[in-house]
């Protein structure tokens, strides 16, 4: 449906955050349970654990259906209700990119595709895909060795203020 140009983002403190533009304090506290499941979630602000603190590629799209990336080592799906002002993708003290995702209810996919080790200069890709959904559900669609989620995902987080 819609895909924005790729952007580069420097990741710090091992987290990327997707949040509604109007969110005042988008970054959240992490508990051990959040670390194990790979994300923190609250209304309008989701932080995903990164696999490295480094310059990375960000790709954002809105699609009618999910199209899982074959090269992804991790795929996390969370509910996301977008606001009027679109969403922002950022990390700690880094660039902040805005996307005019239409207001609505979505499943937000976060997929991580590591840079091929044999190709020097390549960067890890983080794919964020918004799929319209009236009844979105959180789940780990693909997990790597770093994740060890409990039976029930923790869908509560507090802003780090």
């Amino acid at each position, binding site marked *: 449906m819609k895909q924005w140009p790729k952007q580069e983002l*420097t990741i*710090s*403190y*091992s*987290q990327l*955050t997707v949040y509604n533009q109007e969110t005042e*304090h*988008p*970054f*959240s*506290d*992490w*508990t*051990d349970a*959040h*670390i194990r499941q790979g994300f923190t979630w609250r209304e309008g602000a989701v*932080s995903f*654990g990164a696999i490295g*603190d*480094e*310059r990375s590629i960000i790709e954002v799209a809105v699609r009618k259906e999910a199209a899982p990336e074959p090269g992804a080592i991790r795929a996390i799906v969370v509910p996301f209700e977008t606001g009027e002002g679109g969403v922002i993708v*950022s*990390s*700690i*003290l*880094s*660039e*902040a990119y805005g996307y005019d995702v239409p207001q609505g209810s979505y499943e937000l996919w976060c997929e991580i595709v590591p840079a091929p080790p044999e190709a020097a200069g390549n960067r890890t890709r983080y794919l964020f895909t918004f799929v319209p959904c009236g009844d979105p559900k959180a789940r780990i669609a693909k997990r790597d060795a*770093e994740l060890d989620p409990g039976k029930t995902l923790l869908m509560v987080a507090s*802003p*780090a*203020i």
Partner: protein
Amino acid sequence: MLQALARRKTALVSFMLLVAVIAGGFWAFPPAKTDAAASYDAVIYFPFNRYPLTGDHIRDAIAAGESAICTIDRAGADQNRKESLAGIPTKSGHDRDEWPMAMCAEGGYGADVRYVPSSDNRGAGAWVGNQLSKYANGKRIKFVMSYE
């Protein structure tokens, strides 16, 4: 009578000279606090009790001589991190915390690095992000520990 007047005049001139010297001294050598205040743009009070392990690292690094001031330099973060983390492997369940932070001009080669449990460190980073995102590159932020 004339002699008494001359003595008073001399005393008055001496007093005025003394006042001028003292005032000049203050002007030429302002108190250290004024110097310190001019060297940063804002102070943030890091909540030690919420992120004790990251706070412990920051406190120890500053005590060991690292800068308590972060000059925000987003563009330098990637290169700084390559320099500060070179040769330090990752460790499961932990983050490699750097002080000064990589996104500070003071970071990079020689920064103090410590393994900190990921939940503590990522929460601390999130707190820093919420506090500092509004500041432009080049702003100098002083970190002070708060134990409240």
